[in-house]
């Protein structure tokens, strides 16, 4: 049924990686699910059903999914600390869809029991620490997790992703430098989408090829087309493998474009060039994957449609479950400042 695995070689520096048709369809499924969740959530937000702000990673699904699929899931698996554009990473790494809707809605079933919102999703069961708003803060934490694995001799890796603007922060620098010196199994993924809120990358840094920044730490780095899910997957797989096998920290830059506002309320039309947006729209990662699956892999349209259908179903059920879920009790606000036990 599936054709033989294909070797994907994104960059000469990395070994090539096999992507079977099953895996290719998996990548497609997760991207499709990610977009379906986000589209539905955006509707809910517009209906006033989601408190707080709403961020989407539309157009960056290849990165979100490609980062997470090479990783081992579960509490004893790999640490994954995704950026706010990476809903797909949370999904792939194990967070149930309905809990993500519950999170957006601030319901009791939220991974934070309503205490935090939007993509601040996490839980020990998935080995996803809950990101903080402060950009780049999660980088040193990820280095610390990788250190723990190295100290205990476990073959686990710790992965984190962040936007281009986060590379301006001191914690990016301190984290990467320490990771390099301690030679820990950490993988850093920079999502270069050209913007940090209303600020273009040219005002963020003079070195807009972010993988070049890794050289300052002696960390091997590659740059890939972030709208090509196979390329992202292959780069991550190779980097994660290298880190897992004792190769020390790795850096992957994914080049892409922010396909809209910083958040749903952002009037990006006033500052983003529409023609560039249109160009990137043609590079949509899901459309591109579809073309490859249909044309190069000779997967049938019917099969793709069944995958899309599955994703839509899951979203429907998840939204229902989240809507049925209650809000936390007010008493919850007082709980959990301190841990009773660490285990």
């Amino acid at each position, binding site marked *: 049924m599936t054709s033989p695995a294909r070797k994907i070689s994104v960059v000469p520096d990395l070994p090539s990686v096999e992507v079977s048709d099953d895996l290719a369809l998996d990548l497609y499924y997760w991207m499709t699910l990610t977009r379906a969740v986000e589209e539905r959530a955006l509707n809910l937000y517009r209906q006033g059903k989601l408190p*707080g702000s709403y961020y989407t990673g539309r157009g960056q699904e290849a990165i979100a999914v490609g980062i997470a699929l090479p990783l081992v899931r579960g509490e004893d698996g790999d640490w994954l600390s995704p950026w706010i554009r990476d809903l797909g990473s949370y999904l792939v790494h194990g967070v149930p869809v309905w809990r993500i809707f519950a999170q957006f809605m*601030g319901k009791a079933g939220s991974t934070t029991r309503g*205490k*935090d919102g939007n993509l601040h999703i996490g839980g020990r069961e998935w080995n996803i620490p809950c990101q903080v*708003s*402060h*950009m780049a803060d999660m980088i040193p934490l990820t280095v610390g997790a990788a250190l723990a694995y190295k100290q205990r001799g476990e073959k686990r890796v710790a992965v984190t992703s962040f936007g281009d603007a986060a590379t*301006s922060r001191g914690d990016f620098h301190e984290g990467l430098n320490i990771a390099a010196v301690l030679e820990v199994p950490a993988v850093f993924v920079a999502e270069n989408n050209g913007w940090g809120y209303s600020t273009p990358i040219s005002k963020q840094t003079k070195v807009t090829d972010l993988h070049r920044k890794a050289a300052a730490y002696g960390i091997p780095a590659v740059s890939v087309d972030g709208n090509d899910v196979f390329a992202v997957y292959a780069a991550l797989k190779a980097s994660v493998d290298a880190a897992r096998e004792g190769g020390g920290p790795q850096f992957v830059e994914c080049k892409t474009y922010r396909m809209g506002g910083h958040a749903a309320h952002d009037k990006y039309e006033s500052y983003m060039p529409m023609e560039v947006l249109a160009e990137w729209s043609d590079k949509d990662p899901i459309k591109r994957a579809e073309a490859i699956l249909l044309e190069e892999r000779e997967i049938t349209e019917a099969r793709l449609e069944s995958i899309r259908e599955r994703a839509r179903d899951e979203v429907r059920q998840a939204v229902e479950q989240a809507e049925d879920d209650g809000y936390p009790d007010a008493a919850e*606000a007082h709980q959990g400042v301190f841990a009773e036990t660490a285990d």
Partner: protein
Amino acid sequence: MPELTYLEAINAALHDEMDADPRVFCLGEDVGRQGGAFGATKGIQQKYGELRSIDTPVAEAGIAGVAIGAAMAGQRPVAEMQFGDFVSIAFDQIVTCAAKMHYRIGWAVPMVVRCPNGGGVGGGPYHSENVEAWFHHHAGLKIVCPATADDAYGLLRASIQDPNPVVFCEHKFLYRREKADVPTGADGRIVPLGKARVARTGSDLSIITYASTVRLSMAVADTLEAEGTSVEVVDLRTLVPLDREAVLASVKKTGKAMIVHEDNLTGGFGAEVAAIVAQEAFEYLDAPVTRVAAIDTPIPFTPVLEREYLPTEEDILRAARELAAY
């Protein structure tokens, strides 16, 4: 004279100071073309150009440090934190460099760090922090917390003109909710730092408060008035320098002190006010010094929890009734 919101008053104060003094400039993330996440710096880049309205990289320590250096080199920087919460990243620069420079070598650091502060806007634990207590302990910093549109304007102008580093805590909840006829430009009124405002005179008990809880306290005073209790509301306006005289005068008059703020209870600025009152007005006190503040947790996101977290009008009313009845 147009009615301005608290946020528009801040914008007007920035324009007026930029206009009055060529050394004044704004810097921060997205403050330029965009006018900031909230629009506080709207129109400034258009009017004064990119050199006086700088879109910086995302680097709060760097922003603060650059502001300090520019201030020492003769400019008057007004640095914006996109949200006050992120000033945690600039904490070291502010307490280590800005706060201690003048004490050590008598070289002034005239700068303002604007921190959009506070909760009640569904921002969750990282977009709702009240940051004044991160700094009020630290000698060498002025802390300003306006409660009204007038004061937002007048205190910001005073902060920019002040020769010291000022942490300017502007409350996001008030941005569009507080409004007043605020004279600007040549008619603009500077509000001096270090002078509290008796927002309402009363004789039975004193509520000492600032920022977002001033309006709640005023509402409570209305309610209690109807019940026959006369409440004095003192709006501190600036925490450092603190108008001790105003606080003590009020408490000595009423004999009952209640301190109210939105920030967490423990170690909040209210503790300092309570300590001063308990030491210096002890003989005048007819009742325990009472504090009403947020619970001692991070600021939860979902509305039902955020409401539980924040001190509400009902919380203040209940405590005030108890105190009045004591």
